[in-house]
């Protein structure tokens, strides 16, 4: 289709860029001591993820990822932190128990990762059906209200519980102080 030199190469580079953004963003989010930098890492990670969705031919999902995770979630978190965080984070001495727990959690995470990766690469997956829809809003709306309505409703329940939980915590905090 295309006659541009190195078109394959460029698109591979874009894919690797998205992959690197997702990976490095996640690392920044996990390793940074400043909470705001962690949130920036989260934003980078989400941008990378949306790039991967784009490569999976799901532009709608990619855009939603940016709109919701970068535009709403990260902004809300930064806003909350900006008003609350002290100027300089206190440097804490690493405790011995913390080191042990880090080791344990790293082992568990590594085992989980290897297991999932093995399952993903070697597992006996069913071949995905050829896509019959064109990914338009109409199709997405119909499938959200028919095929996936149960999942859709479950998500709203999760959100409801999250709101209730936040209310409970906020109330508890008020009584203590």
């Amino acid at each position, binding site marked *: 289709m295309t006659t541009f030199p190195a*078109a394959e190469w460029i698109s591979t580079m874009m894919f690797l860029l998205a992959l690197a953004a997702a990976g490095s963003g996640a690392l920044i989010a996990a390793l940074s001591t*400043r909470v705001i930098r962690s949130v920036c890492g989260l934003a980078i990670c989400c941008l990378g993820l949306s790039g991967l969705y784009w490569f999976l031919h799901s532009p709608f999902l990619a*855009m939603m990822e940016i*709109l919701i995770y970068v535009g709403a979630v990260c*902004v809300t978190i930064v*806003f909350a932190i*900006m008003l609350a965080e002290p100027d300089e984070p206190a440097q804490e001495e690493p405790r011995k128990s913390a080191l042990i727990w880090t080791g344990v959690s790293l082992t568990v995470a590594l085992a989980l990762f290897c297991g999932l990766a093995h399952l993903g690469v070697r597992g006996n997956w069913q071949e995905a059906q050829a896509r019959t829809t064109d990914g338009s809003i109409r199709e997405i709306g119909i499938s959200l209200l028919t095929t996936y309505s149960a999942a859709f409703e479950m998500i709203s329940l999760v959100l409801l519980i999250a709101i209730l939980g936040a209310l409970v915590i906020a109330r508890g905090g008020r009584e203590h102080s």
Partner: protein
Amino acid sequence: MTVPEPYRLILYLAGILGFVGLNAAYLVWVERKGAGRFQRRPGPTEAGPAGLLQPIADALKLMSKQLLVPAGVDRTLFRVAPLLMMSPVLISLAVIPWSESLAARNINVGLLMIFAFGSINVMAVMLGGWSSRNKYAIISAARVVSQNVAYEIPMLLVIVTMIMVTGTMDLNEIVRQQEGFIWNWNIFRVWVNPLMPLTFLVFFTCMLAETNRAPFDMAEAESELVAGAYTEYSSMGFGVFFMAEYANILLGCALGTVLFLGGWQSPIGILPGVFWFLAKMYFLIFTVVWIRWTFPRTQFYGLLNLSWKILIPLSLFTLILTSAMMKLF
């Protein structure tokens, strides 16, 4: 004339960058000239005929200044913030259909894409404000977030209304539906929703607020907050923020043209073309300038009240009205 695909994209990339740069520079001139005329003074006159070389002189001045990074700021975030403000606009402009055959990339979720990338702007101003370690900048950043959250809601409700009316998020398709005479433009389609002009007004107000323009320029309230989130920026750091503001206005007005004013369609049904698009877009931009120099800055509570008590109920009402009308007729 068709250019092979990747070369076409490169041409569009250069074109968009040039267009944004030129507009950012000359909208400043329009703004200053307009401000002058509204206040009964001539505006810039010295550099070139009618001050036409003023933007170039300004740019040279900004670029030749030292790029100061104050001690104690978060260096990475401080440097990244202006770029983060500019790049989403450039990405979003790629999906704007300037005319029937003049669009860099025509994707079927174009409208969604503009709003997805538009939401990154808030993050940019906020990071700029936070990383400056300056109390004015932090106050400004806090204001930007509450303002943008408040105005994002009516904006998206209006967009949902428009998606319901047009049935698509493809900007090219949206314009194509408004073919014919002036009453086919979405703003005058009163048989779909009798409140369509009002919907446009809500859209325009939200656009003003989201681009932080007067009377809603709480982020950069010069008389209260020095320069708000941009206080610590010097040289082109400030310059890029400034360009991004005008690029955002350009994008907002282009979007308003596509969604409501029929894009490249002509009002009399003949000779559609890119000049109609530009004429409508620049009319909207001129209105933005006009409003800035006509109305004083609102109070912050007034701003939030306008959104939560007037615009959100109004846009919800038009949304419900539109769905009812579409179901009934």
